[in-house]
């Protein structure tokens, strides 16, 4: 019983410390998406560089690809852009851009300045498709498999670390199976 006087406060302290430490590690901005493992929502949006043409994700059937939600107004998108430029150069993975709440002219000017890694860019001017994808801040990036199922979502910039250690290993696994 004497020993309890010492052990109990230490145990309680350890429990509190554990919760607080875990709290430090968690990013409250990272909300687990309910869309992981679900079919990517269908849409049909105008192609940014040719607004008379419509594009749908159906075009990507049979391929593993990235859907990157960005906007010319988004500063964090500039951070990840070089990573996508390099990825496009390597030809490892097709990237589709979704210009979220962005005027096509602004999107095109931005891409001309910073490079265009996208195989196609579509314009979601009103933001309705982004809502279907549960987007709440740009950039957000979705990894979609051959069957059109969302496998992974990155909230915030895709860094080289995220690409090498999370996205590309998953891509290899998806292609292997």
């Amino acid at each position, binding site marked *: 019983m004497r020993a309890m006087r010492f052990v109990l406060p230490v145990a309680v302290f350890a429990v509190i410390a554990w919760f607080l430490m875990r709290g430090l590690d968690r990013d409250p901005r990272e909300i687990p998406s309910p869309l992981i493992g679900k079919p990517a929502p269908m849409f049909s949006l105008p192609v940014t560089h040719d607004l008379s043409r419509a594009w749908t994700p159906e075009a990507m059937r049979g391929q593993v690809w990235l859907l990157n939600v960005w906007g010319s107004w988004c500063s964090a998108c500039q951070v990840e852009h070089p990573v996508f430029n390099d990825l496009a150069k390597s030809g490892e993975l097709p990237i589709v851009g979704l210009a979220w*709440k962005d005027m096509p002219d602004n999107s095109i000017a931005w891409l001309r300045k910073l490079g265009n890694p996208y195989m196609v860019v579509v314009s979601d001017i009103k933001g309705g498709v982004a809502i279907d994808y549960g987007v709440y801040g740009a950039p957000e990036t979705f990894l979609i498999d051959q069957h059109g199922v969302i496998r992974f979502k990155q909230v915030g910039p895709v860094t080289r670390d995220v690409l090498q250690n999370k996205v590309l290993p998953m891509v290899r696994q998806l292609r292997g199976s």
Partner: protein
Amino acid sequence: MRTPLAIISLAAALLGASLPWPAGAADAPAAASAPATAAPASPGATAATGPTDTGILGSPEQRARYHRLAEELRCLVCQNQTLADSNAELAADLRHQVENQILAGRSDDEIKAYLVQRYGDFVLYRPPMKSSTWLLWLGPFALLLLGGLVWWRVQRRSRAAQAADAARAAAEGSDLERARRLLGEQ
């Protein structure tokens, strides 16, 4: 034994404040390598659309439903605000969705389900009771119960100690009396 009680009540308060939400959800490894400037942005957060409805809802009941829903749904950009409070552009878009769906004759539950399907339980200010959230809902009560139990035990023990002290004092008192009696007799 008074300290553990204080510590446990402190623990209860801290635990309540620090409980990660949603408790027990999939591991969310921190993107520690992301530069500080790289926080996700929201489109033109300056737009001051305000919490008011756009006026497309005709009846007072529809407007009341809209306001109640907007108070119960979370703005995902500014996470501690409701859709009604937030000036973020996404919140305005989502409020507009709520309005349109009310107009389309959808029920409150259907509208909430629409948002949960896209953004997860996090959009609900009142998270549903399920296996991943039972700790969130019941934790405070469990801690209260634990605190009460400890308090009760401490009380009982100190009362028992007091009774023992009193009994001993009484016993010693009678010894003294006896001694005095003996001495007096001498």
